Structures are given as C-alpha cells and as structure tokens.
C-alpha cells in the first residue's frame, strides 16, 4: 500500500525527530526505538490514507478527529501488546463511527483483539470486587483512627489512583501495581506520540514553505533584475 516515496517521507520525519524522551530504564520498559518511530509514522500515514484526510471535502473537525484517531491507533500499534494498548483499542471500538476505520487499519489484528475478553463484560463482578475492597479499606481505616496523617495520605493516594485509572486506557480494570507499570509505559508512549506528531507537522510545514518559495522565486528575481 505504501510506495517508496512514502518511506522516503517517513525517513525525513524520523530525521526531524528530536529525541527528547530517549530515556531507558529496565529492559522491560518502553524505549523509543527507530522501529517504534517507523511503525508509528507508517501507521499514521496508513490512517490518513484510510480516512482520506487530504480530501478537501472534509470539514475541519472531521479531519482533526480522523488525525487524532490515526495518531492513537498508530501509538497503540507501534507499542505492541500492553494492557493500555488493548484498553485503548477497546475504548475506541466502543464508538460505532470508529469501527470501520479500525477494521480497515488493523485488519485481522482487530478481529483477534475483539476475540479477547472484553473488559466491559467484566464490569459487574468487578464492581462487587471494588465495593468489597473499599468496604474492607473503610473498616481498616476506622480501626486505625489514631493514625490520622496516615489515613489522610492513604485517602489521597486512593483519590489520585482513581483519577489515574480514568486517564490510563484500560485502567479501570487494573490493580495498583499494574496501573503504575502501565502508567509509566503509557506516559513514555504519549511523549513519543507528541514528539512524532510535532516532527510530522514540521516536515509538512517546511515542505510547504519550500514549495511556496519555489513558486514566488521567479517573481523575486524579476523584481531584483528590475532594480
């Protein structure tokens, strides 16, 4: 589907990429490798093709949503199989309008993802687990009323954990440890997404400027000669 010129374009974007997140922790942690960058940009361009982003008939909001969708899918695909990437795709496919795009972009991968147990079907038993757990925590808190600062700290952590669960895709069904692990991975991937989109923007902007200047150059020459 992508021609040689596509890959030249991708290489230009990769070259423009300024590695602000080339941090490496453990072997298991997320690293922004060349492979990741290539996979992301390739997937972005595939997404643009699939949603025909360059056509003039699209409205601004529609085009923006298509770009954002492409970017999120690209990030998930480039990262591979993680809890948050599965959560992201699952979340996107919950909306009817996204499904045909996901089908087109992911192909058989999408079918396989759909085959995996859907988190939404676990909602009811999970709720009971959470209620039971929070009741246990409440009992524990009542017993430890003497340690006021400890209780306050734990409540705050609970509150922040709940917020984090809503921000990280698939977070609702994660336990504390997984949530932290996935959050770290997700944050690094998000940073890479931002940097790569920025480099894509820069590349398109600069090539547009070049094309614009090429057109105006003959006019400038003429005026110079005139002087």
């Amino acid at each position, binding site marked *: 589907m992508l021609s040689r010129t596509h890959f030249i374009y991708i290489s230009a974007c990769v070259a423009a990429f300024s590695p602000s997140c080339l941090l490496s922790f453990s072997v298991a942690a997320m690293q922004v490798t060349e492979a990741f960058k290539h996979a992301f940009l390739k997937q972005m361009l595939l997404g643009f093709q699939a949603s025909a982003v360059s056509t003039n008939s699209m409205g601004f909001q529609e085009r923006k*949503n298509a770009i954002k969708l492409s970017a999120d899918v690209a990030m998930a695909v480039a990262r591979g199989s993680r809890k948050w990437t599965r959560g992201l795709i699952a979340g996107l496919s919950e909306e009817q309008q996204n499904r045909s795009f996901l089908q087109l972009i992911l192909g058989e991968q999408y079918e396989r993802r759909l085959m995996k147990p859907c988190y939404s079907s676990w909602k009811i038993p999970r709720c009971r687990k959470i209620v039971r757990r929070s009741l246990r925590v409440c009992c524990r808190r009542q017993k430890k009323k003497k340690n006021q600062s400890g209780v306050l700290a734990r409540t*705050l952590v609970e509150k922040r954990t709940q917020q984090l669960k809503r921000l990280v895709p698939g977070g609702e069904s994660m336990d504390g440890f997984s949530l932290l692990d996935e959050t770290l991975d997700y944050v690094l991937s998000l940073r890479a997404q931002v940097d790569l989109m920025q480099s894509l923007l820069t590349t398109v902007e600069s090539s547009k400027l070049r094309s614009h200047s090429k057109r105006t150059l003959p006019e400038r020459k003429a005026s110079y000669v005139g002087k």
Partner: protein
Amino acid sequence: MSSRRPRSWQSSSASRITDEQINDLVSKLQAVLPEARIRRSDRVSAAKVLQETCNYIRSLHREVDDLSERLSELLASTESSSAQAAIIRSLLM
C-alpha cells in the same frame, strides 16, 4: 514483571510483598515527570507523584489535541500546482 506474581497477589494492590516494587515504580514515574530534573533528589510523596502524573497525562492529551488541530489546518490549506504539494497529497491520501 507482574506476570511472575501469583494471581492472588495481583488483585491486592498494597500487599507487603510488592511494596518495594511499588516504590520502585513510583520513583521511576517521578523521574519521567517534567520537573524531575529539579526535584529528583527529594523523596516526593506517592500522592504527589500520582497527582503530577495525572496532570502530566492531561497536558500530553491536550498537546496531542492541539497538534491534531494544527495538522488538520495544514492539510486543509492545500495548494495545487507545485510538485511538493502534490507529493504530500499523494503520500497522505
């Protein structure tokens, strides 16, 4: 990492056995946050790290949104005649 642990441990979020690993993750998360260079020496509380992480994720989401808008504007204003514009269009079509 967590796959090595038995399922029962995975479901309890604050078990004594994984406390060290949790602290390890929290400090790694702290290192990733934008002001990490300034505050790396301090031992910031877990709640603070979580809060900062939430804020950071939200700001990254906003950045992606903003970049999507700018890309949308850029791809909207297509100029037809030059070769460069044609290449971009065919690449992104």
